């Protein structure tokens, strides 16, 4: 990651910058929100004494105790359903789903209940809660510890979906999510937890939901990405820059509500759009981005709206040869950029 390009304008010049890993930023965000507001509680499998299987909640049980950091039974529907109820009665739960792959038993509670509570009650009830879950492959997690699940939820009106790509954003967006009055799904690429570091100010700041960020300005091709794919897109952009292809990289950050303005302005400028996502291609979130661009920036397009995405197989296979085959990487993205640029 190129820190110089990550657009920290808002905080430039502040003295209290620290370098934090992605997971530390997330942990700090939770801890600080919990200190700020008693209504914030944490619940999930192994989030207590163990501090989570990735240690995202390490130390929080020690600081906040049994009442506010709850090791739940191994029951995801209960984790989400009880969080909904708790949110209706004055708390702001942060529910951890141990792996995004295991959110499916809670699908009904998320889609039928959390997403619809406000609408169906005509604003009588709201569900201010955050659901955190590690997603993504490239970590030898195989079919069930690698999944990208954002497409299932970005399709659901009433839910918000956030996927950060820097420690700064992870902390700032997580805080906004906790303070938000609606259910926010917050997906964290697990490969980034320890491999990604970045500057994070010590003090209070938030990053607003619903705003994309231009990570790298460019003139010829817009690459739209989120999560780990932002980092790969930036690396791909560096590669092709040497060949004279000038790439703009947009980090969506919030997948829903989507920042259409930033997206469309960029494509109207470059005339070419590549959407990069790790999830299975067919019906993935990138399809919506491509469809929006194709409809709303049509007159500005100098090439087909293109997608580079995970293959359409039911999961990331385990053996490293198969997993490498599955995963996007900067080389594959660079190839797709070249193809589009040459169009």
């Amino acid at each position, binding site marked *: 990651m190129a820190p110089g390009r990550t657009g920290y304008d808002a905080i430039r010049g502040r003295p209290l910058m620290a370098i934090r890993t992605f997971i530390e930023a997330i942990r700090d965000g939770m801890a600080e929100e919990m200190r700020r507001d008693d209504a914030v509680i944490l619940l999930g499998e192994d989030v207590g004494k163990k501090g989570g299987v990735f240690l995202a909640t390490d130390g929080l049980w020690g600081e906040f105790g049994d009442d506010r950091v709850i090791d739940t039974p191994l029951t995801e529907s209960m984790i989400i*359903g009880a969080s*909904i*109820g708790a949110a209706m009665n*004055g708390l702001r739960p942060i529910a951890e789903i141990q792996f995004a792959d295991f959110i499916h038993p809670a699908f009904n509670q998320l889609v039928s209940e959390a997403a619809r509570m406000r609408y169906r009650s*005509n604003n009588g009830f709201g569900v201010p809660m955050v659901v955190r879950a590690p997603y993504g492959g490239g970590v030898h997690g195989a079919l069930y510890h690698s999944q990208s699940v954002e497409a299932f939820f970005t399709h659901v009106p009433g839910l918000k979906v956030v996927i950060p790509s820097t420690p700064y954003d992870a902390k700032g967006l997580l805080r906004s999510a906790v303070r*938000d009055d609606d259910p926010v799904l917050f997906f964290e690429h697990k490969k980034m937890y320890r491999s990604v570091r970045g500057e994070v100010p010590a003090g209070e700041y938030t990053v607003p939901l*619903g705003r994309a960020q231009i990570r790298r300005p460019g003139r010829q091709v817009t690459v739209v990405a989120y999560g780990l794919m932002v980092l790969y897109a930036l690396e791909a952009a560096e590669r092709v820059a040497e060949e004279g292809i000038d790439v703009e990289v947009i980090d969506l950050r919030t997948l829903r509500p989507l920042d259409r303005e930033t997206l469309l302005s960029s494509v109207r400028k470059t005339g070419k759009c590549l959407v990069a996502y790790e999830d299975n291609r067919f019906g993935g979130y990138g399809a919506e981005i491509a469809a929006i661009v194709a409809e709303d920036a049509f007159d*500005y397009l100098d090439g087909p709206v293109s997608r580079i995405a995970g293959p359409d197989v039911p999961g990331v296979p385990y053996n490293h040869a198969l997993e490498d085959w599955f995963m996007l990487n900067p080389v594959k993205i660079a190839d797709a950029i070249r193809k589009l640029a040459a169009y």
Partner: protein
Amino acid sequence: MTVTDRSGDAATSPLAASVGLTDADLIAMYRTLALARAIDERMWILNRAGRIPFVISGQGHEGAQVGLTWALRHDQDWVAPFYRSIATCLAFGMSPRELMLAQYAKGSDPSSGGRQMPGHYGHPAHHIVSVSSPVATQILHAVGIALAAKIRKLDQVAVAVMGEGSSNQGDVHEALNFAAIHRLPFVFIVENNGYAISVPAEKQISVKDVAMRAAGYGIPGVVVDGTDVLACYAAGRDALERARRGEGPTLIEAKVTRLTGHSSDDQQTKYRSEDDLAEGRAHDPLPIFRAQLADAGVLTEAIDAAIADEIEALVEDATDFAEAEPDPDPFTAVDWVYAETWPSEIPPPWHPAGPATTPSGGAH
């Protein structure tokens, strides 16, 4: 109506004393039951008259509903009800007008502003959780509410109610386990009417009593006769007190009967025998409770007639009121997807604020 005043009359018959209530309480309970029935019957009339396209009924369940939830403290405890919970909602503070607005799905319907089907009640001020259709989900909401009450140290008990068929859903298992582990202030009520739509109990549940499942969670399981309103009251009160003492959840199963088809879309004669239906009618809680109160000298014919008149007027008023209320403005249909309005969540082109009026990309 002095006869129904819950605090006005301190007379206490042996019957009332047997459950620690006054005669006025019993009359008030009876009135609630009868009122729920009258609203419910009116719903069917309106349905047959083509005024409301769908009815789902509580008839046969009202005795259990009024009894089991009578001890709840209004606007303090919580109920997550289900689509048959008309009497529950009435007992817990909703008015006949409010219930009738839900049948008509008018804009001012406090349950959903006309967005949900009839039977999907809800009332934030009364702590009545919005009912959805997928069954059993509400048990987890009630458990979460109880969890919040415990963490926030509020003196609140949360109750979830559903049918016996619904109690087989996975969410029920997960909810009872969690509530029991944390000894949450939670009561689970199952209204067992022997059918899930057409599927009889023996094909739905592997045990005779749903209450037998309580032992698997280390919590008390109580079976009550839903025609015995005062036994229901006592069971509900005991569970509430147990919950308040921090001793955790209780499962109460009330044996009730479904006097109507599953809903206005169902023909129950296709799958229920005449004997079965007759047996059901013999377990109608309303005449049974009426006779019990009359036998005990609590309910006189004069009081009963006065209540009937009052109810008649209330139902008439509620119907007229709801019928006269306006439908929701279709353009409010975009409201309350989120707490705030997001400009990027674009309404459809046929909506006033849709893309036709907002500048969309390109030189179209």
